[in-house]
């Protein structure tokens, strides 16, 4: 299952600056994640989990170190190149689902495909396939406000996989869900990893959720504490 590293971080550092005062958040992270891995990123609140995930997903830039994800050195890409890279290689799952409220489930899932040269018909096929995968074929024409939280997150999962990216990143994907819905989303993500071979990096502080991953990475005050293999 684990192949070549898809994520390679070397001495990765991120600091924020507040009035010329440096606030280090990540300090020299070295990490390799193999293709097809399922990693849970854990640690206390404020330890830098989201920051690390943002760097891996190419929506933030490091202040030091090197970052190679899905075969590209992200440090060297400009904003537009990085945007194109994200739309090709990364699927996002957010804590608050982040669906566009004025778009239907179908249209929300279609969004990433609008960035590809795909024809309307090809897009429709892909979107229907993705929605079928998360079991929401019947809810295609519904708006987010007409869906339950669990359904919204499933639409978000469909949006994340519709473009067939290699890497899925998720920040507290079950943070806003009740136990039952959280379990469903976890099962869904496990399937994406097992059956579709997606590499997943998931931030969570829920031990139950983390248990679904194959590895747990612990972050403590901006440095990697330990990596544990999950026994199932």
């Amino acid at each position, binding site marked *: 299952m684990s192949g070549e590293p898809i994520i390679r971080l070397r001495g990765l550092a991120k600091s924020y600056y507040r009035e010329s005062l440096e606030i280090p958040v990540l300090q020299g992270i070295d990490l390799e994640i193999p293709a097809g891995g399922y990693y849970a990123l854990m640690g206390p609140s404020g330890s830098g989990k989201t920051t690390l*995930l*943002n760097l891996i997903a190419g*929506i933030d830039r490091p202040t030091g170190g090197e970052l190679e994800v899905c075969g590209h050195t992200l440090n060297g890409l400009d904003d537009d190149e990085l945007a194109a890279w*994200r739309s090709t290689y990364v699927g*996002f799952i957010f*804590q608050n689902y*982040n669906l566009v409220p004025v*778009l239907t489930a179908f*249209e929300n899932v279609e969004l990433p495909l*609008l960035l590809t040269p795909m024809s309307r018909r090809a897009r429709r096929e892909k979107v229907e396939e993705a929605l079928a995968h998360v079991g929401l074929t019947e809810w295609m024409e519904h708006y987010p406000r007409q869906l339950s939280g669990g359904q919204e997150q499933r639409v978000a999962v469909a949006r994340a996989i519709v473009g067939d990216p290699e890497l899925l990143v998720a920040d507290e994907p079950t943070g806003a869900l009740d136990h039952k819905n959280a379990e469903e989303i976890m099962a869904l993500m496990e399937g994406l990893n097992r059956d579709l071979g997606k590499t997943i990096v998931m931030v969570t502080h829920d031990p139950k959720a983390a248990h679904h991953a194959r590895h747990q990475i612990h972050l403590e005050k901006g440095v990697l504490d330990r990596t544990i293999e999950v026994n199932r």
Partner: protein
Amino acid sequence: MALLYLILAPYLAWLVWAAFRYPVPLSYNWRSLWQRKVSTLSTAGAISVVVAIFVVVLSLDQGLSRAFVSSGRSDQAIVLRPNSRVELSSTLDRDQLRILKTSPLLASDAGGPLISSECVVVRSLEKADGDGSANVTVRGLEPAGIRMRSQVRLLEGRWLTPGLNEMVVPRRMQGRFMGLGLGQKQDFGGRSWQVVGVFDGGGSAFDSEIWVDVVALMQAYRRTMFSSALVRLGSEKQVGGFAQMVDQDKRLKLEVRSEPDYYADQTKAGQPIRILGNLITVILTVGAIFAAMNTMYATVASRTQEIGTLRALGFRQHEIMASFQWEATMLCSLGGVLGVLLSLGFNGIQTGATNFQTFSDVSFAFLITPGLMFKGLAFSLFMGLAGGGLPAYRASRIPLTEAMKGG
């Protein structure tokens, strides 16, 4: 104004191109506008009022200009005392007129040579709406004077009988003043004058004049001097020759002005209204642009996470910028459409304005032409571009990490 649009043209071209080529669908913006119904409608409402005022002011300007421009024929000239800009302040005596009437350059028709000695007085009339009175031009003219105004058509009754105390009035003035119905009488110059005919001045300045027989008018007012003479020459080219002839005749000491020139000069009469109208429009426009800007800033702020998410999914900065610029443009165009509809309510309304050169009333109708409607829409587009630019720019600069911020 045209320059402004010229400067904005490349931006507009980019925006149109973006609508077709960029991946963010316009329906997303349209629906987002309706997501915030109250703020969208109140902003569009404010913009619609400004657009309506803009269109009505333009139409007023056009109405005034048309009143004067359509009054002149290029083969006709007005003879005045030198340096009198308007007929009201000009005088001509009988001897001068006798000499003019013998000019071989005059055109003639079946009724004789086409020259009309005329006398202009100003008379106050009660307004029909009870709102006091207004000054109205009363023109005494000869039968030839009526024939020479070819844009004037008789609608009812008959033309004047020379020597009698009769008057003909424009249809357009009838609704605006009391006592101008066919058969009704008005007292002025110590006599009673009866309305015997109603005419249509075709939007010209004559739509604001009451016509009477020149001899009867001068008798009533005990005047010995005419105000002016209207002459028609054989052709447009002969106007210059006629002017030269008058200039060289030592007995005359008069000035000849071609009729179109004379009336073009009078369009300056609308100047104070135009300046006031423009001033009000500019002030309101600035207000409307800020209203649109404010609404768009609020929209962008409330959709920070949504925009961050779009960026995370791979939408680029200029695509977000175009998208929000479109949203602002839609918002303002919605106001534009409403404003044009609002201004249509003024279409055809008869009204008057004061000619600030003669201090008499000019009657005209508001005409909301397709051209004006187009200008109103273009104007709302301009407000969308001006008011939406900065908020759209801010939207495009929202950090992507906003997408990840937990609620």
